[in-house]
């Protein structure tokens, strides 16, 4: 085996000022054309070496043109396994994600979150503005978790990270949920685009206790989980309850039965 394959290297990231310039160039439209190109010119002076260790070649992320959502789960697991050493602070750094979407996983980002057609198809100012907004949303992160949920690459890593083996992270609370598959809850979260959007789009999703307990319910109630409206209503109702009741303080049994009760009411309404 080639020794260099196993040698620890460090992940490259963009410099902060470079990202600010990239955003300004995109907002003005001057770099819009480059988002149709398969390669992105990167100068060494624009990059920093982060403290994120990486070993070997980065994974190949699949994106099927006819059904790009279908590969979200396997891509999320592949990314999480490769970037397993990233901590939460590093994983919310805009410099990392901009580099990964623009350079490292550019091909995937173009297929999954790129612009359809060709640059010349963007004939009006409105069409250009819509294209710019879409790129700003999926290719850059501004320092909040809403962007992380929408960024082409960050969304996959975070989906896996937030749901990976919760019984290891908080054995006192999740001990009874232990499974052989550490990505058991990731599979539920990414089983449908609606689950991901509805559950993580709300502030509730920031609490791993609430997130995992909701996913536990959805995993055990497939019919409920197939209804976008029901998931949305469940999260809306929990959000409403949270305003006057800090359900984050509940023990596991109480939280579980509260979620079951609310879901049952929605199911029978």
């Amino acid at each position, binding site marked *: 085996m080639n020794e260099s394959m196993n040698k620890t290297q460090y992940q490259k990231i963009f410099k902060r000022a470079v990202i*600010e310039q990239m955003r300004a160039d995109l907002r003005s439209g001057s770099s819009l054309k480059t988002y149709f190109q398969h390669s992105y010119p990167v100068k060494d002076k624009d990059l920093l070496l982060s403290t994120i260790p990486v070993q070997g070649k980065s994974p190949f992320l699949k994106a099927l043109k006819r059904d790009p959502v279908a590969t979200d789960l396997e891509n999320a697991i592949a990314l999480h396994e490769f970037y397993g050493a990233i*901590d939460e602070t590093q994983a919310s750094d805009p410099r990392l994600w901009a580099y990964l979407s623009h350079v490292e996983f550019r091909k995937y980002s173009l297929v999954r979150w790129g612009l359809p057609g060709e640059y010349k198809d963007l004939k009006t100012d409105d069409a250009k503005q819509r294209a710019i907004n879409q790129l*700003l949303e999926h290719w850059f992160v501004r320092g909040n978790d809403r962007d992380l949920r929408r960024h082409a690459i960050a969304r996959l890593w975070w989906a896996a990270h937030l749901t990976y083996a919760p019984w290891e992270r908080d054995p006192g609370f999740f001990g009874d949920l232990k499974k052989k598959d550490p990505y058991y809850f990731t599979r539920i979260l990414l089983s449908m685009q609606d689950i991901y959007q509805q559950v993580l789009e709300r502030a509730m999703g920031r609490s791993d206790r609430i997130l995992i307990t909701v996913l536990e319910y959805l995993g055990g109630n497939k019919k409920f989980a197939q209804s976008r409206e029901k998931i949305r209503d469940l999260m809306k109702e929990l959000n409403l309850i949270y305003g006057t*009741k800090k359900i984050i303080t509940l023990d596991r049994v109480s939280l579980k039965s509260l979620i079951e009760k609310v879901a049952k009411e929605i199911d029978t309404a």
Partner: protein
Amino acid sequence: MRVNSKSYPHPVLGNEDDLGGFFRVAPFHYELKKDEITLNPIFNLKNAKIEELIRDGKASFVTEVECQSTFFRSSYSTRKTIDRFMIPSKLVRERVAVGFYVCADKDIPGYQPSECHPDYEGASFDVEAGDVLAVGGYTSFIAEKNFDPLRPPVSSFMSIVVGSHHEGPMQIDYEGEKITVILSKTDWQSYMDVRGQKLAEGMLHASIVFPVLIDAVHQVQNGNGDYADMSWFGRLEAILDGKGLRDKDPFDVAQKILDNPVSRGFQSIGSLLETNDEREYE
């Protein structure tokens, strides 16, 4: 410390004038270390019934911590009036919001609050585990050791870049991690010629940073939801809280943050003219 009023299904201490007494967290200290952040809240509670519930193990002081940058939301419960909680530093970044409550630990059927507003006199309520009984307000801090809201460098929330237009007015982008001022190529060249020179700093603050900051302060004070989860917004909010400027006029606030930019601008001009005069007589 801010408190927002809400509509609860039962009277809540700290929510408008529902109940007599008070619940405050003062002082609230936090300590940023390399590996962990320590929160040291001191809970000051005065309400006979809620104090009794805590003594009887039916309610607790709850500190809720949330970070919008890292999907972090957790709560820490205690029945001690002075306590400390540790958060691993790696779990949070940028603005960390902290809220203080007293919550029921178990169901309390027939809860009869003390020191009630006359509207609630004699009434009883079925309170459930998790229900909020008292609100002690909200605060936030920036989880970064070298960020001092009392002496904030402008570069911590604002940056200046070159735009694609050759000439024309500067533009502002509020939708990035920092507020980005975009200069025309011509102005950028002039900016590059003076950037970093102490003599020019006052002029740059007065002519570029000051007007942008007035508008940014206005956005923060109005709680503009479009920008509320941007890093610059959180930093500016921490600066306003740290300097006690949250409710002051944006025009005055921007001048305080920038330490009288107009005066410093005039000083810059004065110094530059003096320098030129000296050169003329050399």
